[in-house]
């Protein structure tokens, strides 16, 4: 039982990270109907930004408080990836809006290749380890909970609430939802569609950056090809939860995290990615709308 709860906690932590990345997929898919293939690499960029900020700060201010350090890593990472994703959307996706369906997917795949190889070229192909940031560990019964796990879950919850608020209660969120439903009509009613889409990309990237920084904090290592597998898993999470649905993305992320850690604990660690991919295939085949998604009406 204790082992099970331990795995549950590990799964929740991992799932929070996937959930944050999944929100970016789901928001972009909801608003312009494209799979932003480069989103996983944006997540990787966020991790690298946090890593570099960490290195600079610790070399200049040796005794910097960990909380401030973490906050700065997150904020700089969010700004950085927000800018990157804004530029990417502006350069590679916007000109192809309204072109045939495959075109933005191809540029997104190209962008994914470019981003990971860009980091490989500029920062080197080796794994980048950092010393552990948060080391406190709590023992409750036979269960070990580390402070970083608690931090990850709390930050995810706070961000999820903030974003849920933005999407549901603010004029910006209204514009986003309007654009999602009908881009032309929204434009006619005075919604600045281009701006709304840009902001959506920035928001998604900021969340991915947080996830990237926390991934770095959790595993203590960053690598240029960290984007692909977590990216696909986050996409799986978005699909599982119902693409286009914000709570669905987080729910899906948590489920994927749980399945992954339980699978590794009870079956085989070698096939954990197979499990994720198999779930992705099963969900799409049997319930393409996901858990919380709306059914898509097929029109002639």
């Amino acid at each position, binding site marked *: 039982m204790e082992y099970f709860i331990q795995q549950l906690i590990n799964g929740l932590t991992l799932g929070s990270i996937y959930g944050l990345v999944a929100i970016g997929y789901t928001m972009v898919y909801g608003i312009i109907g494209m799979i932003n293939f480069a989103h996983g690499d944006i997540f990787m960029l966020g991790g690298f930004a946090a890593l570099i900020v960490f290195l600079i700060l610790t070399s200049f201010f040796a005794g910097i408080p960990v909380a401030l350090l973490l906050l700065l890593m997150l904020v700089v990472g969010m700004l950085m990836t927000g800018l990157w994703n804004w530029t990417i959307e502006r350069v590679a996706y916007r000109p*192809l809006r309204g072109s045939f369906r495959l075109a933005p997917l191809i540029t997104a795949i190209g962008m994914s*290749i470019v981003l990971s*190889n860009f980091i490989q070229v500029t920062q080197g192909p080796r794994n980048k380890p950092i010393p552990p940031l948060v080391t406190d560990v709590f023992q409750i019964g036979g269960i070990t909970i580390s402070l970083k796990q608690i931090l990850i879950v709390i930050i995810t919850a706070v961000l999820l609430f903030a974003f849920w608020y933005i999407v549901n209660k603010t004029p910006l969120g209204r514009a986003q939802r309007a654009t999602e439903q009908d881009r032309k009509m929204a434009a006619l009613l005075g919604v600045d569609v281009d701006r709304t889409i840009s902001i959506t990309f920035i928001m998604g990237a900021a969340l991915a950056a947080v996830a990237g920084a926390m991934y770095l904090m959790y595993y203590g290592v960053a690598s240029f090809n960290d984007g692909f597998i977590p990216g696909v898993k986050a996409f799986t999470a978005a699909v599982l939860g119902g693409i286009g649905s914000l709570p669905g993305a987080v729910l899906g992320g948590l489920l994927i995290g749980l399945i992954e850690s339980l699978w590794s604990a009870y079956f085989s660690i070698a096939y954990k990615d*197979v499990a994720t991919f198999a779930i992705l295939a099963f969900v799409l085949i049997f319930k393409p709308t996901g858990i919380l998604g709306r059914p898509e009406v097929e029109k002639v």
Partner: protein
Amino acid sequence: MTASTETGHPNVLAKAVREGVFAGVVAFLMFLLFVGIETYQDINNALVWRTRWGLLAIFVLVAAVSRFLSVGFIKPHIDRRKLAKAKSGVLEISEQKSFFHRHFLKIALVFLLVYPFLSLLIVGKQGSLKYVDNFGIQILIYVMLAWGLNIVVGLAGLLDLGYVAFYAVGAYSYALLSSYFGFSFWLLLPMSGILAALWGIILGFPVLRLRGDYLAIVTLAFGEIIRLVLINWTDVTKGTFGISGIAKASFFGIWSFDAGTTNNFVKAWGLSASSVYYKVFLFYVILALCMLTAYVTIRLRRMPIGRAWEALREDEIACRSLGINTVTTKLTAFATGAMFGGFAGSFFATRQGFVSPESFVFLESAVILAIVVLGGMGSLTGIAIAAVVMVGGTEVLREMSFLKVVFGPDFTPELYRMLLFGLAMIIVMLFKPRGFVGSREPTAFLKERRAVSGSFTKEGHG
């Protein structure tokens, strides 16, 4: 309004300067951390950093200048040309074609047939190894893969991101069956094709209901599952170590290319020992396989099944309403595409003599799909050109050792291969979203065959 579109006008120039400065600022912020700072491990293996302001300045300057040029000069130029074209009333697709254009296919085929001998004549045996193997065979493998995928994506409109799975099935079928049972290449070539086609049906069956992006993601998942199984099923596939020492193909069982055998090709013909003969032989094998793919594709397009594929791509609901069996139509597309992937896979295994899961990563699928889309989906010529440009281009990059003189001895052009490949994908898509071959000739037509612009068709060939 017309005056302001001309270059040299202060408004345009002022705008260009503004945009250029803005791009520079954005680039500065974007690259500040990733380019301006380099992280590396010192002697104690601790991660440290140093600054690279010079490189950062280059990045910023390039961004600013290129934005300035594109807003100030290139865009007005393109606009003016478009305007002039619209005024003169010349259609984008003209009837006038040059000699080269009209006979392009014949010229290309003749060139390919004499290519190995040309290279032998010009650079000799040792130099030909590179030109025949790295350029010729490598490009032709991708041409074949892309033509195979073209059946699924370009003709049937089913977006497949896991095509490399069938390539892997073909390669491993040959590698395993030849090393465990000792079957020959010529027996296993059709067998790998059949096995891959079978897998095409197995994987195609569950995804029949899916379309578009969802289909793409499921096929991606299947591709990854097959790769992960190959990595983890170590008893059979030897995992990441891969299978080495795969048998070479023989000259249809008459002559062998293995050194030391009695019916050695080189000995039988009294030639001096060199591996170039085997490469030339392989070149013709893959060329023949490519031609087979092209022939089958062209013939199938004229058959009811090919017409059904294209109809399916344009409108699935209309297809079903007209009584086309979408299940068999989709499955045959998957199976046919997969079969050619399997052929290419077994050829790849015999050419390398070694297969490992490393060769079948998602990136390969992306590269093949990129070639299909960049070539202009459905157009065999366009795809072949795209394969030459993209694969040949990255191979050429490997050869550019003179760049070491420019950028210093630490410069390794190979590292930039995929970076440039990705950039090329984006740039080609931005400027030619319909691919290199933008016009289409319909297979079914009333009275006369007329080419139409690719923009009029939904996904690919029309």
